[in-house]
């Protein structure tokens, strides 16, 4: 790969501190200092991943933008990644540049979606991703910098500059960085996300969801039915407009399900059956427009049980569950996309 050098424009600084200030001045950061990207370091990242600098990772045709491996590597260095993280960043961007995900709409929206990366498979352990205590952060380099690298590419390569094309009214902290690994064995008979989506367990994958801010709730109970009924109430607080709803279950909650012999699929089906309200109830909660003609019709919180995405994750110590709705109508504005991670195992 060294016979295909990087071709990005070069600039100079006296030292690393001056470089950090320079990148702030240029508007090339997310508001936090970046690691200065030298040609040698960027080349090291590309060589480790087996990527040629000009290899096209994806394109945002609406904006006339092309994402090359070189630009991803530069922004990954800036984010503070290690070379072995690059395949995850690259794969996430491949997922985000599919038509199904809709990078343009999800990053321009006034509601302010943050891409959540969920990593499955053996790469989690290999590169030190976290799926336990403080799942959503802070604390672990792999989680923090992989998510951040994606944000820097959106900013520097895809034109998602706040106030220019990114018109989020409020934004969210998750837009700095949002990457987790799934806890694939929180209890017996628990099928991880990528296996549910048809991948072999040994295949590492990343799934990207366009998310709105999470709701934290508690799902205490001694039986699956009690736990899931509690969750159904919180799901209904989100309302029936989310495309998908992610439900992150810590081990203390998963054990209640799996000890009673329930699988992830059974839990999802039960939730789908109980998390529903009449149109009048949705309207009364201002979660749907009122329509007297359909007032008594019952509508579930999502259109299909597969749109409730159950994930294992989080530490021991409490039955705290995160409910993360996604942005946009499923399959119309956006939907989650899963891709295999190539080059990283």
């Amino acid at each position, binding site marked *: 790969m060294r016979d295909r050098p990087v071709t990005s424009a070069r*600039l100079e600084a006296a030292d690393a501190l001056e470089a950090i200030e320079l990148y702030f001045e240029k508007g090339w950061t997310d508001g936090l200092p970046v690691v200065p990207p*030298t040609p040698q370091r960027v080349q090291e990242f590309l060589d480790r991943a087996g990527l040629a600098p000009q290899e096209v990772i994806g394109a945002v045709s609406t904006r006339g933008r092309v994402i090359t491996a070189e630009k991803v590597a530069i922004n990954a260095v800036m984010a503070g990644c290690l070379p072995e993280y690059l395949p995850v960043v690259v794969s996430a961007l491949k997922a985000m540049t599919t038509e199904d995900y809709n990078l343009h*709409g999800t990053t321009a929206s006034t509601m302010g979606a943050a891409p959540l990366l969920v990593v499955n498979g053996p790469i989690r352990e290999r590169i030190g991703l976290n799926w336990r205590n403080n799942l959503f952060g802070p604390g672990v380099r792999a989680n923090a910098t992989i998510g951040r690298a994606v944000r820097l590419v959106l900013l520097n390569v895809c034109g998602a500059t706040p106030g220019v094309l990114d018109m989020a009214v409020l934004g969210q902290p998750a837009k700095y960085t949002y990457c987790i690994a799934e806890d694939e064995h929180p209890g017996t008979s628990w099928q991880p996300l990528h296996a549910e989506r048809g991948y072999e367990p040994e295949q590492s994958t990343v799934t990207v969801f366009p998310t709105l801010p999470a709701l934290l709730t508690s799902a205490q109970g001694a039986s699956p039915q009690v736990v899931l009924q509690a969750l159904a109430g919180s799901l209904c607080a989100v309302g029936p407009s989310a495309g998908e709803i992610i439900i992150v279950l810590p081990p203390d909650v998963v054990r209640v399900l799996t000890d009673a012999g329930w699988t992830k699929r059974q839990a999802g089906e039960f939730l789908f059956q109980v998390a529903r309200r009449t149109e009048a109830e949705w309207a009364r909660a201002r979660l749907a427009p009122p329509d007297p003609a359909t007032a008594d019709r019952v509508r579930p919180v999502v259109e299909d049980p597969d749109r409730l995405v159950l994930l294992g994750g989080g530490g021991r110590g409490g039955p705290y569950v995160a409910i993360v709705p996604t942005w946009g109508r499923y399959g119309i504005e956006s939907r989650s996309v899963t891709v295999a991670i190539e080059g990283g195992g």
Partner: protein
Amino acid sequence: MTIQAERLVLLDPTASPIPVTPGRLAPRPRSLAGLRIGLLANSKPFSRELLTLVAERLRRDYGAGSVREWTKRTFSVVAPSSLLDEVAAQSDVVLTAIGD
């Protein structure tokens, strides 16, 4: 003899949009009298109603002719070429808008 400190060489992380050849604007009609108005709504609530209101003013005040409506599947994805071709083929002037 002065010793020059080695400067740090860095890379630009940004990419610019690919330049496109701008299309030519259609010629502006001298009058709207009798012309077919096409409305392309973006699917947001009340987008159709707003465009329809403007079209009715064009008919009332400028003698514009028939009005035909289309709506994009979603606001957040570019209208497909087939839709744009259909709107252009059935309209003399087109009214659309961006908004929330």
